[in-house]
């Protein structure tokens, strides 16, 4: 496997190989707890931490673990990091931990994490693996936040409600109420709304990609017709 440049790793994680929009992995927590922005950020941060830690650790041991036992080893590593994250959340954001409930321990089974460990971290040096973990985690979190914002706005007519659960007392008045007397649209708060929302986000991503591709194709120079000559006029031919 050819090593990727830093730029490629960043672009892959955030956009072209985004774990939620392109690989469509880790949907269970993605669909279940993105009812509000604060839930989305909480879960996103937890996943980001686990992804960073597991990619780093897997990359460190990649030359010492044999092929046949690698998966159990990865799962052990991921489970340890999930437990750390869980304990941290219990200590610092207990209410949010209770809201997210089972979906924090379930990060262990998030296939995006095991996928990155096996597909990237076990074959690459430490620093690129760490970067890959950060970028994949950020890409996942960005989708979570976009979906959470969409569902919160349509579902409750608010944005950034209950942010104090994550950011402490200073965030109590961050809530933006977009519509007074808004009739809550239960559909968007319930899981089916998450399916529709995620579908729209994927469509938007593909639409942007197609648009960019078309623009690039339009900009590309037309191939030179036969018979024309291009003469080098600057620099030196080595």
């Amino acid at each position, binding site marked *: 496997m050819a090593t990727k440049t830093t730029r490629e790793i960043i672009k892959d994680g955030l956009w072209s190989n985004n774990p939620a929009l392109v690989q469509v992995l880790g949907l269970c927590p993605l669909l279940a707890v993105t009812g509000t922005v604060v839930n989305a950020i909480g879960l996103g941060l937890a996943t980001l931490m686990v992804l960073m830690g597991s990619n780093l650790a897997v990359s460190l041991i990649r030359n010492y673990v044999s092929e046949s036992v690698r998966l159990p080893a990865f799962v052990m590593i991921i489970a340890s990091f999930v437990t750390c994250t869980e304990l941290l959340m219990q200590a610092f954001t207990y209410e949010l931990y209770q809201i997210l409930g089972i979906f924090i321990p379930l990060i262990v089974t998030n296939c995006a994490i095991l996928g990155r460990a096996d597909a990237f971290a076990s074959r690459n040096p430490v620093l690129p693996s760490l970067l890959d973990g950060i970028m994949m985690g950020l890409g996942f979190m960005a989708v979570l936040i976009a979906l959470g914002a969409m569902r919160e706005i349509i579902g409750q007519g608010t944005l950034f409600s209950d942010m104090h659960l994550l950011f402490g007392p200073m965030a109590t008045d961050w809530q933006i109420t977009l519509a007074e007397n808004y*009739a*809550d*649209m*239960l*559909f*968007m708060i319930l899981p089916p709304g998450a399916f*529709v929302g995620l579908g729209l986000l994927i469509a938007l991503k593909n639409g942007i990609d197609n648009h960019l591709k078309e623009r690039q194709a339009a900009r590309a120079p037309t191939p030179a017709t036969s018979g024309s000559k291009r003469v080098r006029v600057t620099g030196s031919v080595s």
Partner: protein
Amino acid sequence: MAFVKLSSPHAQGARRTSQVMQWVILATLPGLLAQTLFFGWGNLINVVFCVALAVAAEALILKLRGKPVGFYLNDYSAVVTGLLLGLALPPLAPWWIPVVAVFTAVVLAKQLYGGLGSNPFNPAMVGYALVLISFPVAMTTNWAAPEGLTAAPGFLETLSIIFAGQQVAPDTFTMATPLDVYKHEISASLASDVRQLPMFGDWVARGWEWVNLAFLAGGLLLLWLKIITWHIPVSMLGALAFMSLLFGWNPDLYTPLSLHLLAGATMLGAFFIATDPVSAATSRIGKLWYGAGIGVLIYLIRTWGSYPDAVAFAVLLMNFAVPFIDYYTQPRTYGHSKARRGAPGKNG
């Protein structure tokens, strides 16, 4: 090349899609008239509003998709979707409920799947189910009381209830549906006591019985014109009656058959919604299974579910099952031996 790609429903016979849809629209008019006479102006305003919204939404999406707007609008399918929603939604529901329902029906359930002929689910029912799940209170309490056109709020007052949010006193002009009331009252009292409630009137359920009979008449017109076949309505009503006689024969415990048939959206569902040619099963035997499934589900959801009426959910659940039904009910092709159940033919 000016070919426009057409997909199903490929109308058999001499009628074009637009003519079929126009007949469907005409056949709903008796029901709409009965609704207006018994429940006031709300339904009529709803229908006009929903049709206008549906056509506007369809035109907008067709424009965005780069399709010929006039050509596709001319098949009247958007009008029918809006019309069915207008007939099904509570007459006095505030304006944003039709807006959400129509947007969901036309944009999400129909055009995002590829337009008429490609939608696996009945668009109107997707819109209805979505608003029913989203706004349960507004959807179950805004039915007009069947006081007749003269006693109901006047035209302008109805407009202001729907569009300006004017409050109406509960239980004077609005109420829950008879199906809902019967189900809740019967757990505490006997059938003869429940029947004394004014909303049940002298016969089945005041107003509702005539609305359902009017839809039945419209449906029979469609049958006579051979726009729909008998299979789906008959098997659906038959299955509903069978379930009701089997489990609910005792009116002191369960809603009786007369209410099931004449007090909800049963007739509208049987003749106008379940028979949607795009999302229903295609072969004759398939249609029988499809209709029977809807009938059984309607009974199950009405009796043991938490929603008062069930036509939308039953139709959507059976829409899910249509590929399965079609797969197992392929008719024998002329000149070939009967295919084994679900198995592809020798050359397939």
